[in-house]
């Protein structure tokens, strides 16, 4: 009876506690992602002398814009302990709605844009209503609406790319120059949206309620908050954000592309998770998501520059996600204990 090879549960617990302590000390978990981003940038700047050049960094930010904006909506939803697999397809739907309405149906640019954003918000309403009123898991609901949105994209576009959208739709693809580096207005919009999301989440009652409902839905309901309405509002806001991502994508690619948004749902979840937001809900900061999106963008760009096949980029992203989720799981287990 003196076997000593039994596992000691104290060790992972202590590890998780240390991790959690480190995260708490770092002002809610942005330090880890920030260090990862810095290390990746240092690594690629040593490996490739092009990496740190202004035009390349500008390219990284432009490539990050759609996923970066989608990931804001994804963060809101994951904070409520939900998840949204439909975001990329919903964005593609918004993109087709706004371009087809203006190019083929003659709707003026601004109403067409607003209708595209409204279509995306409508998908958010559908997701939110199914999650709260029918009490279906968000994973299943958004898997369904992912397929619905994708099908609608192909039906409505007749599988054709819609070219020559009106110039008003291309505004956010234009650039201005700072110190010889081109920056698109789309990047500015993304950063402004992150600032707005930060403000709303950290400085308003709605933001506190979003954290609370992901953290302990029952306690939130008993506190007198209408949790169903709150969660629906989160999905609708996220949908509208996907609509803005659609507009930014039109501006960047200058077409309505029925094949857009393919893996953006997973990429946005990757950005959220790398940014330190817990998939269990109720914990995380939206600024972390921006860092997460930049990590994904830097890896994609850097690995291309040093001539690594794209298969390995996906491999690296996968490893990063599992690492980030493991940290989340370990610190979560400690809190349950």
């Amino acid at each position, binding site marked *: 009876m003196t076997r000593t090879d039994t596992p000691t549960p104290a060790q992972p617990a202590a590890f998780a506690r240390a991790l959690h302590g480190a995260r708490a000390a770092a002002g809610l978990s942005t330090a880890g992602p920030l260090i990862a981003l810095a290390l990746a940038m240092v690594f690629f700047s040593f490996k490739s002398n092009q990496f740190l050049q202004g035009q390349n960094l500008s390219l990284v930010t432009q490539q990050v814009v759609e996923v970066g904006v989608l990931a804001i909506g994804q963060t809101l939803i994951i904070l409520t302990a939900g998840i949204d697999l439909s975001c990329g397809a919903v964005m593609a739907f918004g993109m087709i709605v706004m371009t087809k309405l203006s190019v083929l149906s003659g709707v003026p640019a601004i109403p067409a844009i607003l209708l595209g954003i409204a279509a995306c918000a409508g998908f958010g309403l559908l997701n939110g209503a199914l999650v709260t009123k029918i009490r279906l898991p968000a994973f299943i609901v958004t898997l369904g609406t992912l397929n619905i949105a994708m099908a609608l994209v192909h039906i409505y576009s007749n599988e054709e790319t819609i070219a020559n959208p009106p110039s008003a739709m291309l505004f956010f693809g234009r650039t201005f120059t700072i110190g010889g580096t081109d920056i698109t207005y789309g990047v500015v919009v993304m950063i402004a949206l992150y600032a707005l999301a930060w*403000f709303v989440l950290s400085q308003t009652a709605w933001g506190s309620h979003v954290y*609370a409902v992901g953290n*302990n839905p029952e306690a939130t309901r008993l506190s007198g908050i209408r949790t169903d309405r709150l969660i629906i509002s989160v999905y609708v806001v996220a949908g509208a954000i996907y609509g803005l991502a659609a507009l930014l994508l039109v501006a960047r690619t200058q077409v309505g592309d029925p094949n857009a948004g393919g893996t953006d749902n997973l990429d946005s979840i990757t950005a959220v998770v790398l940014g330190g937001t817990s998939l269990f809900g109720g*914990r995380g900061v939206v600024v972390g998501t921006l860092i997460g999106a930049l990590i994904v963008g830097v890896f994609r760009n850097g690995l291309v520059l040093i001539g690594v096949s794209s298969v390995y980029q996906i491999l690296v992203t996968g490893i990063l996600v599992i690492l980030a989720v493991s940290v989340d799981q370990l610190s979560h287990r400690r809190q349950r204990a």
Partner: protein
Amino acid sequence: MSEPEPVFQARGLVKRFGHVTALSGADFDLYPGEVLAVIGDNGAGKSTLIKVLSGAFHPDEGEIRLDGELVHFRSPLDARRAGIETVYQDLAVAPALDIASNLFLGRELRRRGPLGQFGRMLDKRAMRREASNALSELKVGIQSVRVAVENLSGGQRQGVAVARAAAWGRRLVIMDEPTAALGVKETAQVVELIKRVRDRGLPVILISHDMPHVFELADRIHIMRLGKRAGVVTPQSHSMAEVVAIMTGAAAAPIPGA
């Protein structure tokens, strides 16, 4: 003996669930400033009674009066609006939020001026200050209200829940098994807290299984049996064994003042 008017009163409460009658004409009286313990065996209708009183269930029959006024609670929110706060056994707090946010959850303070009105910005400073006051008034030993609730002990967490109820409960506080999830030492802390809430003059309805605590805290003990009030006794008039006998139907009990 001229008794004061009850703060909270119910007459002839009936609640049926299909074929099961959980409450079959239950009465209830809570007087100002008292701790009234509600006890009863499992299935005696104790928790149904509490859910009706706190607005979670609607009674099929009977009436509830708050300070003599007839009230109809459609939800726990209605009861809260009427000044009745409930503390639940399973620590109904959001663990990742800090103490101040939990105390003000659903009742946040907004900043004055345009930042609050148009920016809908929270007045975190005022919320922290008031949360800190609420906790120190009840002597809940916590250094900072900026600490996330999950970093507190179970007793401290329940302390936050009790402080929230005491801070917002204008009429009375209902405590539903507040110590059921706690250890011995933490239970003792919460028992002290309940005494302090009572000392501030707020009447408390305490639902508990724990006889020693019931006898330590309660001014009167309301005993439920078979969906009715079997009797109301005091810790002075009856022993624990006699109370258990009334609970199980082995003895009858008087209903003073009813």
